[in-house]
């Protein structure tokens, strides 16, 4: 398996400096009715780093995300978070292990306001959602923190509008707020800037940088500007397999990556 060959070098180096691995996948594969979307992928995400996952369309990035967060079950391979095996767990259990994700296609509760979204996220982590005998005034305890988060992503003016009425960019922002509300140790962001204007993109970059402090982030993005400004480490996927890994600079100089993915833009 050629993926194994060119992956060990940088990783070994990092490990020897005493950094711990927050999220790790070993030999992960997924078949969809005979079609192998993810093939024997090894991935180690070092704690505290921002890790980008890039690759051509259909490389298997979203599928990998879905595997890591339990939305689909791997055909083979194992996944660990902070050393704990979570293979085959349900999404909500993985969330409780401190792994939060956003969705490539916006996925919100159309009838809830941004504030209610965030309250829901805060409660999800704090537990207590099952308390059907208590009053929902309980949720007020999260109000302050919720307003703060909504403000951080620039939605305070819209805090009380149902999410269904927001424009796309605003929804993406809310998506971010929701992910942060889970206060995760590991964050998986699927194309956080897709469909955003430049101003929003820059704000999102800032936001990601800010929330990445003390956290581990894995994200997918096609915007090389975003990848370049954020990622400490890049893994390039191609046809379900790892094509290359390393820093942004090493990866973008890799000829295979240029051929398969970046094309002429790398010279631009």
């Amino acid at each position: 398996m050629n993926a194994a060959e060119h992956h060990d070098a940088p990783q070994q180096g990092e490990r020897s400096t005493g950094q711990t691995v927050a999220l790790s996948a070993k030999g992960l594969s997924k078949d969809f009715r005979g079609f192998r979307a993810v093939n024997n992928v090894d991935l180690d995400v070092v704690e505290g780093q921002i890790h980008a996952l890039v690759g051509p369309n259909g490389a298997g990035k979203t599928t990998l995300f879905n595997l890591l967060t339990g939305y689909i079950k791997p055909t083979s391979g194992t996944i660990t978070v902070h050393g704990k095996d979570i293979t085959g767990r349900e999404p909500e259990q993985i969330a409780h292990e401190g792994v939060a994700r956003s969705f490539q296609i916006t996925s919100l509760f159309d009838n809830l306001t941004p504030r209610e979204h965030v309250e829901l996220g805060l409660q999800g982590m704090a537990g207590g959602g099952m308390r059907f005998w208590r009053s929902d005034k309980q949720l007020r305890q999260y109000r302050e923190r919720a307003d703060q988060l909504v403000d951080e992503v620039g939605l305070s003016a819209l805090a009380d509008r149902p999410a269904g009425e927001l424009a796309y960019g605003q929804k993406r922002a809310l998506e971010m707020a929701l992910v942060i509300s889970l206060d995760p140790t590991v964050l998986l962001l699927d194309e956080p800037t897709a469909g955003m204007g430049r101003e929003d993109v820059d704000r999102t970059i800032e936001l990601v940088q800010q929330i990445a402090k003390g956290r581990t982030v894995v994200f997918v993005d096609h915007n090389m500007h975003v990848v370049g400004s954020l990622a400490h480490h890049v893994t390039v996927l191609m046809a379900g397999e790892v094509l290359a890994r390393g820093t942004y600079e090493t990866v973008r100089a890799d000829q295979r990556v240029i051929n398969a993915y970046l094309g002429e833009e790398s010279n631009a």
Partner: protein
Amino acid sequence: MLEITGLQAFYGEAQALHGVDLRVDEGEVVTLVGRNGAGKTTLLRSIMGLHRDVRGSITLNGAEITTLASHKRARQGLGWVQDDRGIYASLTVEENLTLPTVTHPDSAWSLSEVYEAFPVLADRRRAPGTTLSGGEQQMLAVARVLLTGARLLLMDEPSEGLAPVIVQQIRDILLRVKEQGTTVLLVEQNVKFASTVADRHYVLAEGAVAANLDNSEFTQRQDELLTYLGM
């Protein structure tokens, strides 16, 4: 070819378009830029007859089409690539491609031409449409409309979420389409992409046309536009 005057569009009580005036001539490639929520998608959907809560006038080749049913507009040569791609889960890739009515056989691409341009699609022709990745679906959506031979393509952010190589591929295809004399109205956020394919640019802000620039003006004023429009 396409002429729009005083177009207003509504979502219930909210107004998304506040009197858009715009024209696209035969053979032109025109982009529509503007920040999120400016109303670009709404405009395209209104032209296509999918958003019907509108006032104003839309004419195609001089004929009023404001109230025409959308399948009839399609038959008059309008082709639409929707922003969320619109791929059928219950159809295979090939069925997705062959589904639309071929309206202008002379300008229509053939299936083999499409497969040549997008080899991925050929590989997965028997797979259900939505098992393709986001980017593959985008290619499928573009390819599909090429097969109909539509004379005026309405494309809503075809480069969104695509890998740079694929974006280049789409751009090449657009250039090829343009060469064939097909007219294109393109919604685009990617300014660089827009400036390499288009002749003219409409800047949409808050539901109205804020500027109509040709390519050189557009490139010149790019930075100003970017900050002004927040793109």
